[in-house]
């Protein structure tokens, strides 16, 4: 959907109602979805150029603590109830009805713009630094902007499923949190060039010497409520399909303050200059198509999967709240938030009863996030035709490698397993490469991440329990999962 833009001075208008054509599109969306899924239709994608969006964390790693501990390599194995999301074709491997639950606690290290301390730098107590030397923004040098360590913790019930297997087919109901992201972070207004002035609006500009001080709040939830099924095709092949209603809730608020050029911001006393908000609440369909093959002895298994990401509408708003400025604007737009599509291949190898390994290769189409990106600030409108350079934002698609190994201590009366894994997560930050140095500072590339993971658990006759930990420089995930199966005897 193209962004619809209105510039309204004074009181706020009501949001535009959907047109008849849009309502028609909604009505046809459900019917078209399965066809689009099977044909692998193209995904559109958009967010906005609001700085708050730069740190959104998607959870594409497979649910279940043991699978997290395997470095997320589970497409090829896909032999437990979490396959309902990861690769539904694997549901056919389940013998008895099962209930699976998982709790995850995720720490995401979001970013703040700050300057490192050196001989020419004096830092405020809270690590916002005042640089006395003139230097250019250059992320490749030690004087460039660096990521801070604002930390957000999100404990949540991340996965819940029930699987009902039969001999030739299996059915699953599940709830999976694709995104559970909450951030509250403040930027202190990093300095770009000391020789320059700053804009009174606080909106990043071409000639800013210092960016505005921001107070950001963000809450993003995408929860899938799905039904999955698998069918045994014979000769070791199985096919799976999962359809889910994705519940999307977005609420962000960025408040902009402009302290005196050399001062630290005092958010309690400074006048608020302007506010940007993004709000969305919608339910859309999404789905997963999976295929799995297993050798006759069960020694080798291969899997392929395609996740179709949903697309959600949201309302973006930027408004002036400072009576001292001459710019009285209230800009409202409609945008779309697109969850990237993802697809992958996996291999599982059972070396013995006690030892198995798994390797996955996934491709996540993060580039969809920049399609039809909206300019939440309305730069072209506010500043007499200034180019918002939306075409200079980009996100690279990511090819992720996952690998893991699992060892079972079989002599124990209740088998215990140890798991270890690693996965490589290329940077998929929203990056700006245009002339506007303010945007370049906020939307900049980060390092690729190498995750390491460990886990341990036990399997009794009717119950499994596992704990796992995944570590990377930007995220820490602690996961607890339990499975209960229902036996006849």
């Amino acid at each position: 959907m193209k962004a619809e833009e209105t510039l309204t001075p004074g009181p706020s208008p009501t949001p535009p109602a959907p047109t008849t054509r849009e309502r028609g599109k909604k009505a046809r969306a459900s019917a078209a979805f399965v066809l689009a899924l099977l044909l692998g239709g193209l995904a559109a994608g958009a967010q906005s150029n609001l700085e708050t969006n730069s740190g959104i964390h998607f959870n594409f790693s497979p649910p279940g603590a043991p699978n997290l501990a395997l470095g997320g390599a589970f497409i090829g194995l896909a032999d437990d109830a979490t396959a309902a999301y990861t690769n539904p074709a694997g549901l056919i491997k389940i013998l008895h009805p099962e209930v699976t639950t998982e709790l995850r606690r995720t720490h995401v290290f979001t970013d703040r713009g700050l300057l490192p301390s050196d001989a020419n730098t004096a830092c405020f107590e809270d690590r916002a630094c005042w640089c006395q030397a003139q230097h250019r923004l250059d992320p490749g040098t030690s004087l460039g902007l660096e990521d801070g360590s604002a930390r957000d913790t999100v404990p949540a019930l991340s996965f819940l499923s029930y699987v009902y297997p039969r001999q030739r087919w299996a059915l699953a109901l599940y709830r999976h949190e694709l995104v559970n992201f909450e951030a509250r972070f403040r930027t202190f207004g990093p300095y770009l060039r000391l020789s320059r002035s700053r804009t009174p609006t606080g909106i990043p500009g071409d000639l800013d010497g210092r960016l505005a001080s921001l107070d950001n709040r963000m809450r993003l939830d995408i929860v899938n409520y799905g039904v999955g099924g698998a069918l045994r095709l014979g000769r070791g092949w199985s096919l799976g399909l999962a359809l889910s209603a994705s519940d999307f809730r977005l609420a962000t608020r960025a408040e902009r303050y402009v302290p005196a050029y050399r001062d630290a911001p005092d958010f309690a006393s400074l006048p608020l200059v302007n506010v940007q908000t993004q709000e969305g609440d919608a339910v859309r369909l999404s789905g997963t198509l999976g295929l799995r093959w297993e050798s006759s002895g069960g020694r080798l298994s291969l899997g392929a999967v395609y996740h179709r990401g949903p697309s959600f509408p949201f309302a973006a708003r930027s408004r002036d709240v400072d009576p001292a400025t001459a710019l009285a604007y209230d800009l409202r737009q409609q945008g779309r938030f697109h969850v990237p599509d993802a697809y992958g291949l996996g291999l599982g190898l059972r070396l013995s009863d006690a030892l198995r390994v798994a390797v996955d290769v996934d491709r996540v189409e993060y580039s969809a996030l920049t399609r039809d990106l909206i300019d939440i600030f309305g730069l072209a409108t506010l500043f007499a035709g200034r180019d918002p350079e939306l075409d200079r934002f980009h996100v690279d698609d990511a090819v992720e490698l996952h690998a893991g190994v699992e060892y079972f201590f079989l002599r124990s009366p209740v088998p215990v397993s140890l798991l270890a894994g690693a996965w490589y997560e290329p940077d998929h930050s929203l990056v700006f490469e245009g002339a506007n140095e303010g945007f370049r500072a906020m939307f900049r590339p980060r390092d690729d991440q190498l995750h390491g993971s460990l886990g341990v658990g036990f399997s009794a006759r009717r119950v499994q329990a596992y704990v796992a930990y995944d570590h990377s420089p930007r995220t820490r995930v602690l996961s607890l999962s339990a499975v209960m199966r229902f036996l006849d005897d």
Partner: protein
Amino acid sequence: MRSSQLLPGRCLLCLLFLGAACLPAAPAGRPERHPDFEVGFLAFDDDHWLMAAEKMRAAEVRWAEDGISTRITDRWFEPYAPTYFLGRALAKLGCREQALAALRRSAICQREIRGRGAERAACQGLIETLRVAPPAPPAPGVDCSRRGRQR
């Protein structure tokens, strides 16, 4: 990517993988896998008693019952007890004498194996049940004297 930042993590992970790979895959002398038992157990689970009996016979010939956990699917395990399951399958088929013979020679039934108390109790209970049960003909089409596949 700054490779220097990732180096410690890479080294740690390599060590973990190497350590895991060096662990013994199974107790000494024991087969790495028990495919006959696995197939037999799945057949047992699906109430396919003839197939279960055939595969359990093959499994106990390959490796005697030891009660150690064997993976069936996913992360679910069963004690390696082909003789015990053979006895249970034969009992379902109505082959009382053969079932009693299998259960009586089952290691899991005859001696204490750590963590297998429930199976031992069940086995002994089944022996007692079969012992006092009145004689009955086997299921239709079942020849209890045959050791191979029966149709």
